[in-house]
């Protein structure tokens, strides 16, 4: 079973690359924010899987929960920042 968990974790890591593309090359700032948020939600699961691999789930659940909190606060703070400061710019869409 642990091999299976490992392969699922590797799959998640692979999927993070997709979001990483958005986070790095996203045309607008908010696209980057989406990418970061998506990476965060995958990391929560990744932490749980690592916990099962090391057989210390009780510890890793705490870390995952804290990570979810901090991810939420970070996204909210970043978008609130753009509510106030008009630091966004309009760009042509990628068709």
């Amino acid at each position, binding site marked *: 079973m642990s091999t299976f968990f490992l392969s699922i974790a590797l799959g998640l890591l692979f999927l993070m690359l997709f979001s990483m593309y958005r986070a790095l090359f996203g045309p607008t700032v908010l696209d980057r924010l989406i990418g970061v948020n998506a990476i965060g939600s995958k990391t929560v699961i990744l932490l749980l899987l690592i916990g099962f691999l090391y057989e210390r789930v*009780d*510890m890793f659940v*705490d*870390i995952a*929960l*804290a990570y979810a*909190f*901090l991810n939420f*606060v970070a996204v*909210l*703070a970043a978008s*609130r*920042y753009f*509510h*106030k*400061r008009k630091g966004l710019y309009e760009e042509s869409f990628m068709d």
Partner: protein
Amino acid sequence: MKFIGFVIVCLTGALLLYGTGEFPDWGDPASPASIHLSNHYIEKALEETQVPNLVTAVLADYRGFDTMFETAVVFCAGLACFLLLRDFSRKKERFYRHTATGVILHVKDSKKVLKTGKEFEHMDKDWVPSDLIIKTICRILIPFIQIYALYVVAHGDFSPGGGFQGGVIFGSSLILLAISYDLKTLLSRVKEKVLGIFAALGVLIYVGIGAICMPMGGNFLDYVKLVPLVPGDPHHIRALGMLGVEIGVGIAVTAAMAVIYINIVSEGRHDEGL
């Protein structure tokens, strides 16, 4: 002046980099730390301290001084932010908002002051009303985040948490309150003065627990000497001492986080903030 600062920073960095050359390689099995210290910690920590989490045992007991000064550093960071950024000067132009109608008044004369309260309230130039959904959801979530933060502080010896982590989460719950409503709501709940007092109080708890050990006949932070003061099983005295220390760290970190956030986000003016 800027140039001199740049040179000093570069020189210090170069000195530190030069110093790292003398360190043993990372994970070197022949280094003194791996031969004597680690083995002792790993083998003896549980029976000596009765704490299941090795990291906490090392952090709050064997290396208690280190953690104490880390807490002091966090406190100093909060203090520095306050001293550098806090702006007590009166603003030349002020904006007021009529609560019932939403009409905005722009007062240019710095001497005229409107009474704020039920009818008028202070506001920023770039005021953004707080969003209903974010407000409601954060209102529901904040108590749960806080109980989780306190849980992390209290379970420092079982779970990966501890004072620093719990303090950061509690501080972020206060920050969430400031984000979802506005900074004034946070400041009306938690006064700036209270935050300052709490930041100092946290460090005081840590140092105080260390200092009480000395009149009891031990060294600084020698938890074993606290046995006559604390009821309960004397074997767990080290765990209890660590718990007290963790609570102190948690209080200091929470208050320092909030102070840093408040001062940075409003540039020291304590207005609407982010």
